[in-house]
């Protein structure tokens, strides 16, 4: 297709060039002829006809494309280098073009009479003679032929070269695309860890392959996460569900005592409420990790949220023998989800409350901090409780992970995972630091 277009354009260009050069040469020849005619007319006027005859004689004897023919008053040839000129050329003054028999050179042995084409100008001299001056156009044709020839070879060369280059390029491109296709097929067949090969050429294909691989990494991580969630849901929801069922069954069997059944029913309700809470927490994490629709994000005054939550939890902390303190910079704002940020802060405070161990001579203290720092917004909840061993800090953020020492405490084990998910939803991160003593939980979010 492209080659066809290329050829078409080449031919058009060739035609245009030869037409242009033809016209140019034609103009040039006409100019030469006119100049010669003017010179001869001047000679005729100033020096008389013998001088013209002599000039023609001289011009005719020179080799070249010049064509000359001179007649007397009655039309008899008296000079020139051609033998015959058509009658109408002689009769009418002006430019003509005709075919003529070229006079044979003396040393040429063959008998053929070469024919020539000529452009001529006919002019009646003052002395009464008729003069025909012209140029053979074979020379011109020859030039055009050279141009056309050269051009044709050039076009042919370009065609062959571009064909080879095209085939080579498309072979390379197809090879690369094939490798991407086969990777995609392998992944669809279930081998999620396949990756598109990246060459060292560092071209656009490698950029594409790298992006595809990053996308595949993300998908694999998500799939892995999904699998973990399903496993955990299976474990952490099935266990209490089984317990619920067992309790109901045993109450049903023990039909003698009404109060036993009543108690069993009450535990059933409490257990199912716990289940609902776990389920809600899981859903919330899933939603936060999937990324909330932009409609749910609005400008949130974090300082106000922190103040509200501190005010909400202050009395509970006091009741538990702790002081809930705030170190909040006024007017720290972020584009986010107020409910989720509030929930995250609540989870952090509840965690700090849950793991606080009252000791004599040691005043428990929880500090809520909100501050902006160089394009980041930091939300911190620090305590001076028992702390978390460094080795466990990464692990406790995962879903359902509860340190063995806290298995007996109530809770779903999802609190910190939700905080981490909320931080990720706001394009930030969540980490646990040592507060010597105690834990400092930090949500590190980009401002704005």
């Amino acid at each position: 297709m492209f080659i066809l277009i290329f050829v078409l354009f080449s031919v058009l260009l060739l035609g245009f060039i030869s037409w242009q050069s033809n016209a140019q040469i034609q103009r040039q020849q006409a100019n030469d002829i006119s100049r010669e005619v003017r010179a001869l007319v001047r000679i005729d006027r100033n020096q008389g006809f013998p001088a013209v005859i002599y000039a023609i004689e001289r011009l005719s004897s020179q080799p070249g494309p010049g064509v000359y023919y001179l007649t007397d008053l009655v039309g008899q040839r008296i000079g020139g280098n051609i033998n015959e000129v058509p009658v109408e050329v002689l009769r009418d003054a002006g430019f003509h073009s005709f075919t003529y028999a070229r006079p044979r050179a003396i040393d040429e042995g063959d008998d053929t009479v070469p024919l020539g084409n000529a452009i001529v100008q006919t002019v009646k001299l003052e002395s009464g003679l008729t003069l025909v001056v012209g140029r053979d156009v074979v020379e011109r044709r020859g030039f055009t032929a050279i141009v056309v020839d050269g051009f044709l070879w050039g076009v042919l060369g370009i065609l062959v070269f571009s064909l080879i280059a095209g085939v080579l390029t498309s072979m390379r491109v197809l090879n690369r695309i094939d490798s991407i296709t086969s990777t995609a097929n392998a992944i669809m067949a279930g081998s999620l860890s396949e990756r598109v090969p990246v060459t060292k050429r560092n071209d656009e294909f490698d950029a594409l392959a790298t992006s595809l691989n990053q996308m595949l990494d993300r998908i694999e991580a998500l799939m892995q996460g999904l699998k973990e969630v399903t496993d955990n849901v299976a474990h952490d929801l099935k266990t209490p569900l089984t317990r619920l069922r067992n309790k109901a069954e045993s109450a049903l069997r023990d039909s003698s005592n009404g109060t036993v059944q009543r108690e069993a029913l009450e535990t059933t309700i409490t257990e199912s409420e716990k289940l609902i809470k776990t389920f809600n927490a899981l859903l919330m994490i899933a939603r936060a990790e999937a990324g909330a629709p932009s409609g749910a994000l609005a400008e949130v005054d974090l300082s106000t949220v922190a103040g509200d939550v501190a005010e909400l939890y202050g009395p509970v902390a006091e009741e538990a023998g702790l002081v809930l303190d705030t170190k909040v910079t006024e007017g720290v704002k972020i584009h986010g989800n107020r409910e989720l940020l509030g929930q995250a802060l609540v989870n952090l405070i509840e965690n700090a409350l849950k793991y606080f161990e009252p000791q004599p001579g040691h005043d428990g203290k929880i500090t809520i901090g909100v501050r902006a720092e160089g394009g980041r917004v930091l939300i911190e909840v620090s305590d001076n409780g028992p702390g978390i061993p460094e080795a466990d800090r990464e692990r406790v953020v995962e879903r359902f992970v509860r340190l063995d020492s806290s298995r007996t405490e109530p809770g779903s084990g999802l609190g910190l995972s939700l905080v981490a998910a909320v931080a990720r939803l706001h394009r930030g991160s969540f980490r646990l630091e040592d507060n010597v003593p105690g834990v400092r939980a930090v949500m590190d979010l980009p401002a704005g």
Partner: protein
Amino acid sequence: MKILLIEDDREAASYLIQALDESGHVTHHAADGETGYAMASGMDYDVLIVDRMLPRRDGLSIVEALRGEDNNTPVLILSALGEVDDRVTGLRAGGDDYLVKPYAFTELLARVEVLARRSSPAEAATSFEVGGLLLDRLSRKVERNGETILLQPREFRLLEYLMKNAGKVVTRTMLLENVWDYHFDPQTNVIDVHMSRLRGKIDKGYANPLLHTIRGAGYMIRE
């Protein structure tokens, strides 16, 4: 109270009808959206309980259509969708309250009873009085038997909400929603601690307490 329940799940509906009946309310039931809309616009009800996802016509469009006809019957929307934005769309469509499934019946009952009072003059009243306890919404002053009680701003809002719904059960989540504007389930007893502080301020030293804890449901203020 006359209630219309539009809910397609037969089991849930029959349970709710029975429970509402035991609480002394008359409940009509519609099992799909079109029937529900026809009943709601044709008869007078005190409260409508509308499931969000219904066959033939969805719950939100029913509420929107009713509001378009200047029908201002209070509406409680029931939904399995519990995200903040789901709640916002529900309330924007004209719902007065939004309850996420699964819910406890006590929670639903408390909300329905509070909703029924929405249209009563209490909503716009400038002061409330319960058994000698007086709350003035304009001067933001509280006194009992003439003695001024000093409250924190949040305690004032708590008491205001309770007194506005005097004689009705108010659940912990309702308090968290209306006084703090958060919609999660409090894990610990945060609300209880606030309530016991409020009780200490308004009931301490009086023989007849006004603030009552309703076991398994929430709180109520009454004489």
